[in-house]
C-alpha cells in the first residue's frame, strides 16, 4: 500500500503550500500541498502530535497512523434499536474484559443470552488495542488525552478515544473499518480517522465503492466534461440548461489542484485537476451518477478505487450495475456484528463462524458451500497489485483461514481481508436475490451486493 515518504510523514508547517484566504463570507480554508507526497487525495494540514502521521489509503482517503503505521480508529456512539453503543465523547468503553452475554440492543431478542464460543472469545482490546499516551504526551489541537478505568492515558481525536486494529498489517491498511457510511441497523462500527480533505468551501467528499466521490456540500455530485480545459469550456448555451457550473467566490484564487475559470467577466467557476466542475440538473438523488450517461461527462473523484480482479465483470440489473464474477454472478459482501456491548464484528475468518454458518447453511458448512458459494479464484489468477482484493486460502469446513498445506483449502477472493460470496439462488446474470439475505436486511449477519452504479438507493455509498 502506498504511504507517505519519511519527509512527508511529519505534517510540518513547512509542507504547507500557499495559504489562500477566501472571503470571510464563505469562511477560510488552508490548502496544504507537497508534490513529494504520493497521496491520491490532498488533505489539510492540522497540528498533530509527533507520534502520529498521515498515511495514504487505497479507498478511504488519508488517515492518521501511529509510528508503526497502524491506522487510528474511533468508535463513535451509534443509536441502535434498544439503546446506544459505541463511545460517548471522552469516555472509553473498550476494555479487556471478555463479555459473555448479549446486550439486547437489537430487538426482538432480549439481553442476557449467552454469546457463542465463550471458551475462545476475545475481549474488545484484544481486537482494538487502545492508543496509549506516554507520560510526556501533550494535547495539541483536536488531539486530547482521556483517562481509562485503570488510570492509563489514551489519545483521543475530537474527543473520540483512539484504537488500532489487529487486522491492519501494513501502513495504509484500513482493514478494521472503513470511512464508507453504514446503515442505521449496522453495528456501532469503528471508523478510521484522518485529516480533513483539502477542499474549497462548498464541496464535500465521500468514500464509495468506486472511489472518493466529489460533490457540493448540498450533496450534488459534480461532473467534468471531456471537451473542457482548465482555461476554456465547451459547455455553453443549451448545454447549460442541464449542466450548472459550480460557482467560485469572487475572491477565490487558484491553489494546487484547484483553479478558477472565469467563464465571462465576473462569473467564476471552480476547476479541479484542470477540469471545470458542474452539477447535473437531472440527478434525482444525492451523490448521483446519472450524469455519466451523457457522453463526455464524468463524475469527479479525489481518489479513484483501486483495480478490480481481471476476471470480475459488471452486470446490469433492474437496480443498476453490480459487481459479478467471471460467469456474471453477483458478488456479495458478508456483514456481521454481534449484539454485544462491545459490538465486535463477526465477518472475518478469524472471528466466530457461528453466525455465518447459521445464515448460509442452517449450521451446516456443506450447505453453505451451495447456498453461499465462495467466489473462487481461477487457477492461475493473481490479485491485482495495490488492491483491496486478495486471494486467500479458506478451509471450507470451518470458514476460517486454512493452515498451510491444507489439502481441501479453497483459493477464494477476499475484499478487505474478508471472503466474498455468490448466492445460490441467483440463476443468471443480473439476479441479485441475495441482497438483504440475513439478519437486519443483511446489515448484521447477512449479504449485501456490491453496487457499482445505481440510481435508486445510493448503493455505492
Amino acid at each position, binding site marked *: 500500500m502506498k504511504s507517505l515518504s519519511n519527509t512527508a510523514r511529519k505534517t510540518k508547517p513547512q509542507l504547507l503550500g500557499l495559504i489562500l484566504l477566501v472571503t470571510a463570507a464563505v469562511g477560510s480554508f488552508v490548502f496544504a500541498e507537497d508534490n513529494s507526497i504520493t497521496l491520491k487525495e490532498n488533505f489539510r494540514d492540522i497540528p498533530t502530535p509527533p507520534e502520529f502521521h498521515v498515511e495514504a489509503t487505497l479507498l478511504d482517503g488519508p488517515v492518521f497512523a501511529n509510528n508503526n503505521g497502524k491506522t487510528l480508529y474511533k468508535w463513535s456512539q451509534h443509536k441502535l434499536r434498544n439503546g446506544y453503543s459505541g463511545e460517548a465523547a471522552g469516555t472509553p468503553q473498550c476494555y479487556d474484559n471478555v463479555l459473555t452475554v448479549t446486550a439486547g440492543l437489537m430487538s426482538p431478542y432480549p439481553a442476557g443470552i449467552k454469546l457463542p464460543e465463550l471458551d475462545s472469545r476475545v475481549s474488545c482490546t484484544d481486537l482494538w488495542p487502545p492508543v496509549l499516551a506516554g507520560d510526556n504526551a501533550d494535547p495539541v489541537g483536536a488531539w486530547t488525552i482521556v483517562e481509562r478505568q485503570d488510570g492509563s492515558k489514551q489519545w483521543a481525536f475530537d474527543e473520540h478515544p483512539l484504537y488500532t486494529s489487529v487486522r491492519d498489517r501494513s501502513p495504509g491498511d484500513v482493514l478494521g473499518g472503513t470511512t464508507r457510511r453504514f446503515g442505521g441497523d449496522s453495528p456501532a462500527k469503528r471508523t478510521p480517522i484522518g485529516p480533513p480533505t483539502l477542499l474549497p468551501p462548498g464541496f464535500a467528499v465521500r468514500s464509495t465503492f468506486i472511489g472518493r466521490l466529489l460533490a457540493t456540500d448540498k450533496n450534488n455530485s459534480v461532473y467534468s466534461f471531456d471537451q473542457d480545459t482548465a482555461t476554456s469550456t465547451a459547455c455553453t448555451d443549451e448545454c447549460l440548461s442541464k449542466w450548472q457550473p459550480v460557482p467560485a467566490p469572487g475572491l477565490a484564487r487558484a491553489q494546487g489542484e484547484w483553479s478558477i475559470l472565469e467563464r465571462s467577466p465576473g462569473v467564476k467557476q471552480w476547476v479541479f485537476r484542470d477540469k471545470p466542475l458542474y452539477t447535473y440538473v437531472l440527478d434525482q438523488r444525492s451523490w448521483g451518477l446519472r450524469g455519466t450517461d451523457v457522453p463526455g461527462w464524468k463524475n469527479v473523484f479525489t481518489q479513484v478505487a483501486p483495480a478490480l480482479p481481471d476476471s470480475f465483470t459488471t452486470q446490469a440489473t*433492474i437496480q443498476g450495475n453490480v459487481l459479478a464474477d467471471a460467469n456474471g454472478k453477483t458478488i456479495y459482501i458478508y456483514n456481521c456484528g454481534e449484539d454485544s456491548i462491545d459490538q465486535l464484528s463477526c465477518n472475518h475468518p478469524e472471528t466466530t463462524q457461528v453466525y455465518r454458518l447459521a445464515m448460509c447453511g442452517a449450521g451446516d458448512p456443506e450447505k453453505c458451500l451451495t447456498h453461499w458459494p465462495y467466489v473462487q479464484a481461477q487457477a492461475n489468477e493473481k490479485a491485482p497489485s495495490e488492491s483491496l482484493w486478495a486471494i486467500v486460502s479458506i478451509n471450507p469446513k470451518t470458514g476460517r483461514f486454512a493452515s498451510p498445506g491444507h489439502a481441501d483449502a479453497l483459493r477464494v477472493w477476499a475484499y478487505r481481508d474478508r471472503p466474498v460470496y455468490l448466492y445460490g439462488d441467483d440463476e443468471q446474470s443480473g439476479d441479485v436475490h441475495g441482497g438483504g439475505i440475513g439478519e437486519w436486511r443483511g446489515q448484521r449477519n447477512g449479504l449485501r451486493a456490491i453496487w457499482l452504479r445505481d440510481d435508486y438507493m445510493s448503493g455505492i455509498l
Partner: protein
Amino acid sequence: MGNFKRLLTLVAVAAATSMTSSSLTAASSLRDGTIGYVITDLFWSVYQTEDAKQECPRGFNDGPREQFAKLYPNYKDMSVEETQLRQEIQTWHPTTEPDEFEFLAVEGDLSWGLNLDGKTAPNDFTHPDGTPGVDNEVYRSVGCIIGFRGPDGVEYIFQNKAIVDERYNRMMIELSDVDSLENDDSVTITMSRGMDRLLTDATGAQVMAGGTQRVDTRWGKSLIRQMQGSIKDSVLTTEPIDDLIIPWMNLGVPSIHLIRDMRLQLTLTQDSASGVLAGYADVDTWYKQLIRNDSTHHLSNGQISGISLYKALRKFADAYPNPESGENTAISTSLDVKLTQVFITH
C-alpha cells in the same frame, strides 16, 4: 349588488370554472388515444370487518416476540445458537414442517379479488358483491396477521408508503388505442417503470394528476409488459399475461414480486384509476421480498412470524405445481391498486 345576486354570480363563476377545469383535464389526459397512470397505492387485498370476528374468530397470530417468549422462557440459561439463531435459521431456511404454534388462517367466506381459474371451488371465497369463485389464498394466509391489516399494520403502512417514496417501485400503465374511457372493446396496455418523482400537492402527501414520467428503458427494460384489454362501463379488464415482475423495495433492499397469470381490473377516470391487480404469486419470491426488506424486528412490530407464515403460504399455495414434487409453487392473490393519471414520455 344584493347578496342573492352576488351569491348567484359566485355560483355561476364556480360552475363555469369547474366545467372549464374538468373539460381541460378531460381534453388533456387522453391524448391521441393514449392515457397513462402511475401506481400510487399497492397492497395485498385484505377483506376486513370492523371487529375481525367474521374473518378471524379466533383472533390474530403471534409474532416473533411472542413466540420467542413462549419457546425460551429460560433464555438466560441458553446460548445465542440455541435461541436467536435457531429462530433466524428457521426464518431463512423455512420448511413446511409444522412448528409449535397453531396458525390462524382466515375463516370467513368473503374476500376481495378475482376468479382467476374460472371455476368455483369449495375453498374459494365470495366477493362482497356476491360474485363466487374468488381466488385469494394470500388473504387466507395473511388476513389474521395484524401487520397486514389496515389502517395501522406495519406492512400495510410501509410497503404501501414505499410505492410512493421509492422510484425503484414506480410502475405505470399506459393505455393506447383508446377510443373512449367509458367503453372500448379493444385497448392495448403497456406496463413499465417510470424514472421520476411523483407530482404532489404542497403537503407532499397527495399525488396529483398531470405529472410527467419518463419510461425506464435501461434498468427497467425487463419489467416492460404488454397486454390486451377492454373497457366496459369505465372498467378496464385485461387478459392475463404470463407474468409480471413488480419491483418492490420497502426498506432499502431492491427486491421483486413475481405474479403469474397477472391481470388487471380497474375503474378508470380521466384523473385516476383503481381496482385490483391479481394473479398467482410465486411463493418463495413473495416470502423473500418480505423478510429481505423487513428484519425480524420489523416483522415483530406486526406480529408477523416469518417461520409460521411461510408454512401457511406453502400450505395454501394453489397453482403452478413443481413438476417433480407436485407441490404448488404459486399462490392466488389480489392487490388493491390505485393509480393517478400521468403523462408518459417516450
